[in-house]
């Protein structure tokens, strides 16, 4: 994060890229995510994982383009769309052509939009957008573009996988859907309704509601409604304090069934749930930590934990993104963005977390194995928050969403 | 001819407390009228009623024959009544010159204008400079008003009050807290700037009152017990009885 030279002033004064030419074979990736402010926790962990993945999976194994290194250059966007666009400009000025971002679909939307405009206006300075976390389905549907690649499964695919597992459990008669009132929360709710009504004819949706994001002081009233409805399963896309607040309120109201979530782990959440959340909190996601799929994966995680004892592998997909990007760069034989993007399209990759990752060409959505994991302290090899609790994979959907529809109409540079 | 100010059965209650209990008062044009009375008699309240700071509980107030009861202070001000305050009430963070200029703006027809530059209005500047000389603060023109001496602030207070050219001037204890020589200078200033205008003042200094006033009203417990020339008031047994007679005697001494 800290730099000995002031990037900004160099950029301001020279007016040209000073860094781009330094070592031709090195490839810089601009990591634009919150490194200060309320979401800095997620951002700094993501940065550490990117750096670790780049070192472990690429740089120590011969690097890219015959010995070049992948270098992750952090930019603090303070989770603001405006700041992200400024930092994007700074990164481009430094000659960086690959942007990695993940936190907040709002920022991702702003970035993908800005990058598309930039590439149109500056055909000589194309920029590639590696989206490693933002899961708003629109990014690979209506708002898709050639420069954007998503390495996480989008909200629709995850819900598809989740309901595939849920439909096997006949005891889930009443499902309650609750989420934050914004694009992602609405996307989760819409996907849940669509999938449940299609796959689970004997299940009724007893509640489907949105609450303001980050404004609810006490989730107890919501929990009361969930209890009063005789709910068998709760589905929520909540994250951060909204997740903890909702989860704790529901559990304290006496709820014993499963709470299916997207983001109920790490950055203090696992530790806060602790014993209360055992066998209640379930999470749909990619990247299997427990049980470890291979020695390679186990070593990768232990190596990371040794380096960052207070951090966890919060976003396993970063390893996929780094490896696939390196492959793409090598295949392109240079840093021509169009070539790298073309190489990434349709790329097949054997993930360190097991299974295959396919970068679907028609919408640039990574197709990978999706797991339903449970919050527990049994059989946990790698816990979160050093709390002895972690996520254990209960079931897996292979290549989830391989044939999922997309409304993406991509225009490729001719 | 209509009176400058006419009060008919004016009443004011604060909660259950009756502060002004039916005041009738007529002040003629160009008259210099003083209101005296013991502390807590309601002098300032009466002032605040006439100038619109407080709403009336009952009665009528007429300014130049026009009912002004219930109007806001700025509306009354626009009808030609201007007042000063007992506690110095100036624009402390602005210069002396600007204080006076603010006092001039409405009367010179600028209203809420945001299309004229004040600095380029030579008439406005001239008038403000004249006022500055009138109140003898010419050498303090660009001083921030908050750092003036007390006497200077009181003079500025008078300056702002008369700036608008109102023909009814109400002064609330203009010489309070001043030394003897300062008081003398203030009296002279008051005479000078209220030439030909109606003057209403509340004052404690009997010397000043008998020096300046044409007529005096004595307010005791929210009622006017006497309203006449200084000589009559001074001789009034009623006043002596109700009011602190001693202070009147002091003034004689």
């Amino acid at each position, binding site marked *: 994060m800290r730099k000995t030279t002031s990037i900004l002033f160099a950029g301001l004064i020279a007016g040209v890229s000073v860094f781009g030419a330094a070592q031709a074979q090195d490839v810089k990736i601009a990591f634009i995510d919150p490194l200060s402010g309320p979401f800095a926790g997620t951002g700094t962990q993501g940065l550490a994982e990117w750096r670790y993945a780049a070192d472990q999976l690429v740089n120590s194994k011969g690097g890219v383009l015959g010995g070049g290194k992948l270098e992750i250059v952090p930019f603090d966007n303070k989770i603001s769309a405006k700041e992200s666009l400024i930092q994007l400009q700074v990164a481009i000025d430094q000659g960086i052509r690959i942007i990695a971002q993940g936190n907040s679909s709002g920022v991702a939307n702003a970035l993908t939009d800005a990058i598309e405009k930039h590439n149109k206006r500056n055909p000589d300075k194309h920029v590639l957008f590696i989206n490693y976390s933002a899961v708003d389905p629109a990014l690979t549907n209506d708002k898709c573009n050639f420069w954007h690649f998503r390495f996480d499964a989008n909200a629709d695919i995850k819900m598809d996988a989740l309901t595939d597992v849920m439909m096997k459990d006949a005891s889930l008669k009443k499902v309650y859907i609750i989420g934050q009132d914004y694009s992602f929360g609405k996307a989760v709710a819409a996907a849940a309704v669509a999938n449940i009504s299609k796959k689970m004819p004997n299940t009724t949706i007893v509640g489907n509601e*949105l*609450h303001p994001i980050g404004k609810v002081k006490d989730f107890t009233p919501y929990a009361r409604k969930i209890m009063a409805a005789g709910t068998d399963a709760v589905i929520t896309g909540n994250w951060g304090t909204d997740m903890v607040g909702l989860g704790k309120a529901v559990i304290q109201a006496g709820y014993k069934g499963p709470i299916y979530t997207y983001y109920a782990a790490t950055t203090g959440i696992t530790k806060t749930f602790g014993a209360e959340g055992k066998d209640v909190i379930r999470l749909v996601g990619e990247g299997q930590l427990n049980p470890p799929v291979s020695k390679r994966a186990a070593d990768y995680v232990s190596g990371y934990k040794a380096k960052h004892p207070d951090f966890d592998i919060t976003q396993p997909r970063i390893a996929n993104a780094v490896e696939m990007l390196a492959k793409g760069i090598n295949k392109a034989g240079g840093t021509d963005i169009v070539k790298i993007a073309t190489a990434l399209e349709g790329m097949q990759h054997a993930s360190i977390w097991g299974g295959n990752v396919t970068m679907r060409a028609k919408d640039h959505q990574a197709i990978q194995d999706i797991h339903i994991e449970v919050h527990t302290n049994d059989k946990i090899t790698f816990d979160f928050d050093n709390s002895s609790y972690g996520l254990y994979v209960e079931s897996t959907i292979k290549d989830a969403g391989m044939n999922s529809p997309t409304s993406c109409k991509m225009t490729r540079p001719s | 001819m209509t009176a400058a100010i006419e009060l008919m059965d004016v009443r004011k209650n604060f909660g259950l407390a009756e502060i002004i209990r039916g005041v009738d008062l007529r002040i003629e044009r160009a008259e210099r009228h003083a209101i005296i009375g013991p502390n807590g008699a309601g002098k300032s309240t009466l002032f605040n009623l006439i100038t619109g700071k407080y709403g009336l509980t009952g009665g009528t107030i007429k300014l130049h024959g026009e009912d002004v009861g219930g109007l806001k202070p700025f509306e009354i001000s626009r009808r030609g009544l201007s007042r000063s305050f007992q506690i110095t009430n100036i624009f402390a963070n602005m210069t002396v010159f600007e204080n006076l200029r603010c006092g001039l703006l409405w009367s010179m027809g600028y209203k809420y204008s945001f299309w004229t530059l004040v600095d380029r209005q030579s008439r406005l500047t001239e008038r403000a400079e004249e006022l500055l000389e009138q109140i003898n603060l010419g050498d303090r023109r660009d001083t921030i008003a908050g750092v003036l001496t007390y006497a200077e602030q009181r003079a500025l207070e008078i300056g702002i009050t008369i700036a608008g050219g109102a023909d009814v001037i109400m002064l609330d204890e203009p010489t309070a807290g001043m030394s003897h020589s300062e008081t003398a200078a203030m009296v002279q200033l008051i005479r000078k700037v209220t030439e030909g205008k109606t003057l209403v003042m509340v004052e404690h200094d009997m010397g000043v009152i008998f020096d300046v006033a044409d007529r005096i009203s004595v307010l005791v417990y929210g009622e006017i017990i006497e309203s006449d020339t200084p000589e009559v008031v001074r001789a009034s047994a009623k006043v002596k009885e109700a009011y602190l007679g001693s202070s009147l005697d002091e003034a004689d001494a």
Partner: protein
Amino acid sequence: MELVIINLLDGLVMGLLLFMLSSGLTLIFSMMGVLNFAHASFYMLGAYFGYQISQYVGFWPGLIIAPVLVGCGGALIERYGLRRVHKFGHVPELIFTFGLALLIEEVVQFIWGKSQMAYDEPAVLNFALFSIGGNEFPAYKVFMIFIAVGIFLVLLYILTRTRVGLVIQAALSYPDTVQNLGHNVPLVFMGVFGVGTALAGLAGVIAGPSLGTFPGMAFLLGSIVFVTIVVGGLGSLWGALLASLLIGWLLTFAASYNVHMSDVLTAIGFTPPEDMAEHFLRDLWTLTMPQIGPILPYILMVLILIVRPRGLMGKREV
């Protein structure tokens, strides 16, 4: 019906928690004329101190120590910060407390990091005391009710039965004359500020485990507390209590009942547009009560300020 009863109880807990914050804030505001923007930050400090103390000696000592620490901190800030700014006027005072709120949040993040703290209810109280219609009511919440009611009684006693209470009461009613009371006014100010912030700290200690201990907790609750004292009215402990409960129940019931705007609009005679997905009022038609629940207090405050600026039970205008 069962849901109504349990919602009343939940709203009571929320309202009483708000009261613990607003009682201190309203005392400070009415006496010193300064709206302490950082009041909820002291609440947050209380929660973090409580958490830290609970790591070493458990929850119960923290219940005493943390508020005392917060109160001392508050008194020091009054003495060396606020008093210095006081002479510049009320607006700079407000700006000062605003800056203080920013600073405290940053300091908390610096020391404890940005993640949620695993601050839990004490094991003794971690069980369901009773249940209504399948909804369990945790013992801890009953404990919260008792603490808050206890605080209210103590405050009431101090204000109406003790000498210092009478001074404070006088100051509440006649803020301009407080200087003439012959008491050491700066000391009274410092004391009131210290006690007010200590109350906020205590609220933090007991709310931290149930509502979460994280850097955004001050911001989340802060503006609602202002709303409470403005709605309740200045200088009135009863007003603060009334407004706190009102807002507690408002928040709870708004979250509990899915009143759909479409039903309301249909009921008053509008017909839903056919092209709902494209209609320019679609957001209005699809609105539900829980969506707007948390912003209802602000609407209430703006209305109160317009219609009745002195608040529900205030003795004088803000």
